[in-house]
């Protein structure tokens, strides 16, 4: 009786024309993930997981994504502060430009980086000339490519948190004799910590999954620039089972990231 009434109520409220595509959409999103798990070579999974190649790619991925995240934090928090608090001319334009890497095809980002930081690039030429230092096709290049693509996630999240924070706490700190830098460190930063954490996790997850910009700018050199997504792509041609194992690892990481953020990341992005 109760279940019938419930069905009636749902049927009455939601038109079939919406429910069907909704279920289809859900299936479309979930079935590939289920397929991935179903196809996994579970019996040989542990041995493949701890093989040298996988371990190397995973270690490289985690190190590069983490360093890229630190880089994004160091540059992104001040940038978010500037966008949220400073009275800049053309701030709306700057904010729009900051979000460009968010919608830009990563490959295009990689090409752009190559043009600027490549050995013959605007900046890259000088780096090579003065310091004998070249970024493309190095691990440092992977980090640069990942940071380029992932930083907007951090900036947007932190800027949202800064806008939501009550600036009167900063005024209270000023009346207690705190200068701007001390106020930022002791009052502003702690109050936006949840936004910073959410932004950093999103940034890290995006960096970890980076493919397009990385392969364009840093190439595919095992042990130096072959991160997990590149390894998946590579393995698909030689040993599909390894590709599945690597994919499951990345899926697991994504799920953990999502669970750790829960609904927070949504409020951070708002």
């Amino acid at each position: 009786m109760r279940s019938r009434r419930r069905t009636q109520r749902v049927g009455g409220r939601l038109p079939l024309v919406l429910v069907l595509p909704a279920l289809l959409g859900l299936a479309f999103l979930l079935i590939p993930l289920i397929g991935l798990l179903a196809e996994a070579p579970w019996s040989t999974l542990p041995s493949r997981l701890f093989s040298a190649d996988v371990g190397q790619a995973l270690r490289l991925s985690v190190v590069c994504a983490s360093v890229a995240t630190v880089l994004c934090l160091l540059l992104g928090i001040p940038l978010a502060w500037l966008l949220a608090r400073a009275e800049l001319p053309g701030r709306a334009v700057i904010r729009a430009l900051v979000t460009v890497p968010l919608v830009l095809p990563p490959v295009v980002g990689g090409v752009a980086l190559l043009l600027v930081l490549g050995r013959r690039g605007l900046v890259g030429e000088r780096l090579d000339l003065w310091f004998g230092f070249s970024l493309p096709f190095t691990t440092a290049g992977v980090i640069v490519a990942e940071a380029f693509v992932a930083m907007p996630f951090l900036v947007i999240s932190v800027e949202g948190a800064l806008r939501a924070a009550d600036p009167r706490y900063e005024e209270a700190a000023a009346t207690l004799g705190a200068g701007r830098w001390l106020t930022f460190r002791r009052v502003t930063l702690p109050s936006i910590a949840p936004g910073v954490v959410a932004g950093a996790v999103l940034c890290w997850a995006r960096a970890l999954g980076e493919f397009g910009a990385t392969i364009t700018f840093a190439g595919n050199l095992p042990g130096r620039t072959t991160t997990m997504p590149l390894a998946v792509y590579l393995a698909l041609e030689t040993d599909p089972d390894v590709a599945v194992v690597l994919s499951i690892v990345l899926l697991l990481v994504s799920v953990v990231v999502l669970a750790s953020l829960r609904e927070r990341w949504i409020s951070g992005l708002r």
Partner: protein
Amino acid sequence: MTLYAELRVARAAFSLDLALSVKPGEVVALLGPNGAGKTTALRALAGLLPIDDGRIRLGDDTWDEPPRVFRPADRRPIGVVFQDYLLFNHLTAIENVAFGLRARGVDKHIARADALRWLETVGLADHARSRPRALSGGQAQRVALVRALATHPEVLLLDEPLAALDASTTLHVRAELGQHLNRYEGRTLLVTHDPLDAMVLADRLIIVEHGKVVQEGTPTEIARRPRTDYVAQLVGLNLYRGSASGTTVTLPGGGLVTIANPTSGGVHIAFSPSAISLYAERPTGSPRNTWPVEVAGIEQHAHTVRVRLTPTADSAAPPNLLADVTTAAVADLHLLPARHLWATLKATEIQTYPT
């Protein structure tokens, strides 16, 4: 060193133009309705808002004098208690109090020891490790007060310090705040819309309306001679200081007032002029306070008439009693100066505050 300020701030919605001075040890209240510009004045003094014209000086030290001098908040020797306190939620009570000292470069351990002593003065040493969210409204207010006082500011600015409290705690916290302000040797400026806060806490009132000073003086002066209807309405309050014993309060200037709830020691008693009823003959009912009085003055206000009364020869009436009556009552009672009347006041109409 006197704090001296001429504040002129122009905004689209209103303009502020007022002068004020506060001597060491003095408590001056800026009293006025919401939107009168009181908080703007306080923000200007705090250095959170540059003035457009005028000057702010402490002795010979200029804080703000457009267009050349502006010293920001963090370089003025001030303490501010904000309306909703703005305690830092990620810091404990003791870290909040130590914040100003740490900002001045005081060693961490010394700052914490000092902060603990300040918390002791307001009876909150046990709450030193509490986060602001875990404190009651009255406790948070006290932490905010000692946080502002911990740096030994020359000027203490209080923005509606009692407005965020519920009515039952206000009484107690107001009395306690009064004691702390008495002990504080610097200059205090209190911004409030509550005449009772102003009259109980301040030595001098500056009444602001539409960004301008409408009257200035001691609480008693202003209550006796309000210059405008607005001020009369605002400070139309019979306020006395006396000593209580049981339900009887003895006033130093003569006069005995019966209150509803027994208490003892020094008290403020306050009641509205409309709580006084006037009769031509001795009334037969039994209000606890029935006094023979003489009419000393009559002032017409918008809808009421304010009558100033003095006690007759052997009356126990409080001095300088104010009563509000309707225009019709003026005729009924043949209200004329020097006329003898009976005044009554119900004990339940009287608010009592410990001093």
